[in-house]
């Protein structure tokens, strides 16, 4: 028979597990974003290159912050995979920008999940990361949805999946980084 203390302990462990799971998912999304931007930034020039390079750096920073949060909460951060299945493999500057906007949509959706956890500092980080992602996306493609993450402007892409080799450029757009 469960006592009050054991029920409370179970609840605490469950909440902690849920928190760590959400943090790990966000970290995996940031790993995928860093990977996608490293490919995309090589395909663009001028202002777009500046935007994508800055976005790459921003995602690296968020990745490192998530690692710190996970370590601080007793978890073990996941490492980056060698490569990720992307919705498209950028061969042109237009494809690189398209990939970047898909990355930001995916990352926004993942951070929206993270906002729901019961941890103030994590919620704050997730909310700020959402604002950054949506703003970056606007810089690449000037479109705004009323409720980013809650009501996607385009059909929701599937989560990114790590792979051991790169996906061909003409692969179906079945997955997006960030999920």
């Amino acid at each position: 028979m469960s006592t009050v203390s054991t029920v409370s302990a179970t609840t605490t462990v469950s909440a902690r597990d849920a928190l760590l799971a959400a943090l790990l998912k966000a970290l995996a999304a940031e790993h995928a974003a860093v990977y996608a931007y490293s490919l995309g930034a090589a395909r663009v020039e001028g202002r777009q290159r500046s935007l994508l390079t800055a976005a790459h750096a921003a995602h690296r920073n968020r990745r490192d912050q998530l690692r710190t949060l996970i370590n601080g909460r007793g978890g073990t951060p996941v490492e980056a995979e060698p490569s990720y299945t992307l919705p498209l493999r950028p061969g042109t500057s237009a494809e690189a920008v398209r990939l970047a906007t898909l990355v930001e949509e995916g990352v926004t959706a993942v951070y929206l999940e993270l906002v729901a956890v019961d941890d103030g500092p994590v919620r704050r980080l997730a909310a700020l990361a959402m604002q950054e992602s949506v703003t970056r996306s606007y810089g690449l493609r000037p479109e705004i949805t009323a409720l980013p993450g809650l009501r996607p402007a385009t059909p929701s892409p599937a989560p990114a999946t790590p792979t051991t080799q790169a996906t061909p450029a003409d692969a179906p757009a079945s997955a997006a980084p960030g999920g």
Partner: protein
Amino acid sequence: MRPRRLTRRALIRGGAMGAAVAAMAGCAANEPEPVAPAPPDPQVELLRQVIAGKERTIALYERAAADEPALLPFLERHKVHLAELRRRLPPATTPATAPVTAQTASPAPSGGASPGKVSRTRLRDTERKAAAARPKQLQSVSPPLAQLLASIGACEAAHVQALSRPL
């Protein structure tokens, strides 16, 4: 100082007083206790504040869009926010008919509803302040409301950037 001794008469008088007090207490216990108003739900209070702010923003945009129709999409997005926020209010606190317009707007604390042209700078500043407030507001609310506030804040952050460019 000599301790004062309780006399038999004093004890009887005290006992009578005690009985009277007990009787009074008994009377009070039989009366219906005044119903203390329930403390306001902090989440509902926050919702009300956010809704009031959103109504002020809509009022600003309605005036601005009259001169600059390119701002209408911004106005529409704020109306979506307001509708979603109102939907989260408990039924008892939801206005019976609450159209998503500035007619229900609360008065602005510092001349927010003052007549005159509304500048892009003013709109951008309003959006920036609102977006900056969201991460703090969502700290202690329910997960669904936290997600709504985060999403609204992300939209407002994009508005800040959009208002810095030609529309």
